[in-house]
């Protein structure tokens, strides 16, 4: 007798949903029917590689880089990318541009900040490295630290950690990490702030991107999946029915449609998760609790401008640098990803309050503000301007991934383990707001479902 196939519903066609489906297909010994529901007309979520209509030149409109932890220990994301045969290129940048000065070295900092502030900065740097070793940094980005309990400074805000520093030093550090945090120091914890500072040290982590566009990872995943992918399908309701399965409902032109699943994974950021209706009161309470714990929205705004030629090579020597504009933003030389490109592309990544505030402005105003924020050659920039693209990522990431109090992995992934063990959540906000974190999360959820499917199969036999 054939055992009926287990039906798995995955809500969200971003990296979290695709990683979960991919791992499920790899791990599960029994055949599964997997359906992925994506509300928009494309897969990939925050991984988005776009093109300029003017000349077809590519740029990253979403996540600009991947984090490489392979120097310290295993890096499953890097291994997956290599497994797919995707070429990568390393990225780097050390400079912070402050008041039209490019501060890329200790010597530059000394000239700009002065002896006292430099000493203070070095003390801060040494203290950060003493507090968090590369190994501890690695562990805090993976699953292992969750069960180790939280540190005594978990609830201390990063702004308190910077409190003792002089204005100059504090400014420099804040501008250095502002766009990584995508939040203000008062909105995040001491440890998460330190992690974001330390990730600039190559001994802790390195950056890379995929040659040809970061969303090649999405294409590589999608073409390997046998799952049924349903685009433009926005799940509105999740409820349990009499057979103890989960019913997903969505709106169509002809009315409401629904389908039953043995297990459901919600791979969504917090904002869309809030919009799903859970008619069962117990589940609704559990979901509200989950959302409240993890609801620390952080905002991004990306302004990308195509120029006739790259005029910035004399002061922007790397893949990116930090600007003091917009409370500290990251300026990417997008064209450095394509060495053969004749045109130049600059990308501004604004984070935190500045991103939220600026997102209200029109595209033209944002373009103008971006060009004005360049420390040098603004006139040349205006003259060489060709086309601009704006991408608003409001509430797209978490300012305090995992929440201020760390929870166990089970509680993170299953809001109601007693009544709804077959309803799981996956997301970068559960770990470290990175793609590596999403993969860890997907891995955990896939392992959970695989075990349930195996138990189910045994029960059937």
């Amino acid at each position, binding site marked *: 007798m054939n055992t009926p196939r287990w039906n798995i519903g995955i809500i969200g066609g971003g990296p979290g949903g695709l990683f979960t489906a991919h791992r499920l297909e790899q791990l599960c010994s029994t055949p599964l029917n997997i359906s992925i529901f994506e509300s928009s007309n494309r897969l990939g979520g925050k991984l988005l590689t776009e093109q300029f209509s003017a000349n077809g030149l590519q740029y990253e409109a979403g996540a600009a880089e991947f984090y490489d932890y392979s120097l310290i220990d295993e890096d499953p994301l890097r291994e997956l990318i290599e497994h797919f045969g995707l070429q990568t290129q390393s990225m780097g940048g*050390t400079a912070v541009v402050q008041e039209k000065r*490019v501060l890329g*070295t*200790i*010597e*530059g900092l000394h000239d700009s900040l002065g002896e006292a502030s430099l000493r203070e900065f070095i003390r801060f740097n040494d203290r950060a490295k003493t507090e968090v070793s590369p190994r501890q940094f690695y562990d805090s980005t993976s699953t292992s630290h969750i069960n180790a309990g939280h540190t005594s400074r978990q609830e201390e805000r990063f702004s308190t950690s910077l409190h003792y520093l002089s204005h100059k030093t504090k400014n420099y550090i804040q501008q250095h990490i502002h766009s990584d945090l995508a939040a203000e120091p008062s909105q995040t914890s001491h440890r998460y702030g330190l992690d974001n500072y330390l990730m600039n040290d*190559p001994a802790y982590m390195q950056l890379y991107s995929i040659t040809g566009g970061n969303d090649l990872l999405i294409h590589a995943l999608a073409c390997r999946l046998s799952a049924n992918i349903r685009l433009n399908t926005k799940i509105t309701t999740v409820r349990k029915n009499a057979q103890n399965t989960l019913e997903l409902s969505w709106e169509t032109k002809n009315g409401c449609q629904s389908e039953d699943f043995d297990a459901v994974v919600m791979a969504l950021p917090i904002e869309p998760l809030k919009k799903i209706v859970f008619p069962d009161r117990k589940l609704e309470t559990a979901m509200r609790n989950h959302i409240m714990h993890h609801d620390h929205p952080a905002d991004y705004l990306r302004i990308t401008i195509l120029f006739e030629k790259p005029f910035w090579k*004399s002061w922007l*020597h790397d893949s990116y640098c930090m600007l003091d504009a917009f409370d500290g933003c990251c300026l990417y030389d997008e064209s450095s990803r394509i060495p053969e490109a004749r045109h130049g592309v600059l990308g501004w990544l604004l984070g935190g309050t500045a991103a939220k505030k600026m997102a209200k402005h029109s595209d033209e105003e944002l373009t103008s503000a971006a060009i004005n924020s360049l420390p040098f050659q603004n006139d040349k920039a205006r003259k060489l301007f060709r086309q601009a693209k704006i991408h608003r990522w409001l509430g797209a990431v978490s300012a305090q991934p995992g929440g201020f109090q760390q929870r166990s992995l089970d509680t993170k992934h299953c809001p109601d383990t007693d009544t709804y063990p077959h309803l799981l959540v996956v997301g970068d906000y559960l770990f470290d707001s990175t793609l590596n974190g999403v993969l860890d999360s997907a891995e955990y959820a896939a392992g959970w479902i695989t075990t349930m499917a195996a138990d189910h199969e045994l029960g059937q036999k």
Partner: protein
Amino acid sequence: MSTNTPHGSEENMSERDADVARNTAHGKHVAEVRFPSISETQVIEFLKISTEEPSESYLNECLDWIKASQSYDRPIILELYGTLVIWTPTQMALVTAPRHFKKAEHAVLDFTTTAFELGAIEQALPSAWEHYENDIPNGFSFYNPDRESAAALAHRYKQAMSLAGRLSRLSPHIHLAPEHPPTLAGQLGERLRDRSRLVDREEFASEQIDTIIRLYETAGQRVSEHGLAQREYVLIWMIVFLLAAEIILLLVDLLSTAGN
């Protein structure tokens, strides 16, 4: 003027620019740098410009200086945080502020020493490959009765091992961990190593040396087996001879006893 730089290079100021080298804090001069530990003959001209003016304003002057010397090497041009470095294997130029000069100069010379040492190893590799194909059969079996062949194999093994040793000593200078917070010297060194692809070149050289060493290690075993076999052969003949002598002596003894 001759000064010792940290890695054993020596500088001699060229006469043609000695007149402009009076002021070491602000000014420019050309020095000749030698690396006696690597090569007795290799000399590099080093144009040093210590100035508070923007370094990019000296770019053309430095490039003209390199062209005037008819250097055919394509230079590495590095402009970084107000410092300009132009580097070729025969000439180099450094333009930076006086307060950064010593550290920047140190970084450039350090890189040059590393690049030269790696270049010297790369140049020695073709001679190590020269006999490789002919020596491959010796990796399987060694029959040459003459001692010279074994000595030649031992010599090539020593050469390859010496190259491996030099490369191992050099590797830490090539795989230097990036500094954080970054320093000007660290950044210059890192980018110069990156632009001249030292890491890749070191890897290729290391792979080649490993391949050569593998052959000569195996050939060494075969030579030693051959030597042992030869000694065994002699020993066997000696035993045969002694046994024969013993038999003859026994026979003589028997015959004499029978005669009595």
